[in-house]
């Protein structure tokens, strides 16, 4: 039942996207200070599990990578490695100011400023740090994007890998990481 209209998703895609957006498994990696608002989001007061958002221990099991704020160069290296280990489709949510334009660490010698130079970001959440409500809104936004077939950062990453690599290697001096095959 394929439809020829380029802009229309196939029925199969629709079903896939339905499944994807209602089981967003989040990788438990607190990369920055925004991680402190993740436990309240996940636990009883805000209970993100209502939306199928569940924490997962390893990148292989996870769909969503939360970049909870700033990334030091040292963490960036681990984050890239983690991101590349995640299975497609995968999504990245940027928490707060630091991921957008450096936030309060705009002149720090050890943190990157613009996250989307190094990896694709699907949704940004306003705040420093974002409240649990904002985090949930971020997830809802991500669900909407998935539904519309627009959360395709992972495709962008594959297509523009060279560009990302160049940027990544500019800050990560010792690139001793394996290449992952998606």
């Amino acid at each position, binding site marked *: 039942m394929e439809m020829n209209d380029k802009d229309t998703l196939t029925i199969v895609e629709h079903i896939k996207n339905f499944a994807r957006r209602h089981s967003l498994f989040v990788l438990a990696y607190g990369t920055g200070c925004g991680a402190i608002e993740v436990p309240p989001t996940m636990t009883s007061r805000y209970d993100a599990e209502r939306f199928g958002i569940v924490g997962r221990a390893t990148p292989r099991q996870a769909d969503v990578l939360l970049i909870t704020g700033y990334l030091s*160069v*040292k963490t960036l*290296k681990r984050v890239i490695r983690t991101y590349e280990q995640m299975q497609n489709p995968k999504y990245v949510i940027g928490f707060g100011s630091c991921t*957008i*334009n*450096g936030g309060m660490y*705009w*002149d*720090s*010698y*050890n*943190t*990157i*400023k*613009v996250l989307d*130079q190094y990896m694709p970001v699907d949704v940004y959440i306003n705040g420093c740090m974002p409240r649990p409500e904002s985090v949930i809104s971020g997830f809802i936004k991500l669900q909407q994007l998935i539904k519309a077939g627009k959360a395709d950062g992972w495709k962008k990453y594959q297509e523009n890998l060279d560009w990302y690599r160049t*940027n990544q290697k*500019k*800050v*990560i*001096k*010792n690139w001793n990481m394996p290449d992952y095959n998606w």
Partner: protein
Amino acid sequence: MSDNIQNLQKSLSERLPQCSVKIRKHGGVELNSSKENLVGVLAHLREHFGYRHLSHISCVDWLEQNQFELVYILWNYESRIQLFVKVRLARENGSGISIRHLWPQADTYEREIAEMYGLPFDGNENPRELILEDWDAMPPMRRDFDTRAYSKEAFYDRPGREDAKDVRSVISGRSGEEIPEIAIPYTRK
């Protein structure tokens, strides 16, 4: 309390004549030691004065005097008097002396200072990087390291904010005011 401090100051000056001892304005007692005497002094304080708790080791870069200052902050659980031991070291090619045989946690402090200031510690040749990774510029905590310039060079800024204007130049441009050179250092930045 102040009696205790004075007694302490007195007995410290007697027992450690190689140091200058003074009562600090903001509490506690301060000892100034030379690099050579430092380890002996600290060991003595620990053994005979009850300064068992090493709170902190800090380093201050006095670029103007071309010196590093190491500050050892000690605490006595009984007398409850803070003690500062300070030592000045040469900034270029200087080195401190490790005290990790006295307090094992000093090891971490020394590694950090070595990394962040480029000040090695004799007796602590721990090669592991503590905080930074593959750092190849000047040690970042040195006063002459310009973090803004470095960050501008190393990272990207998001474009879109180039149209920002400076209030002072807008006002002076509009009024035709010519700001003389003598005034420029006083202009708000």
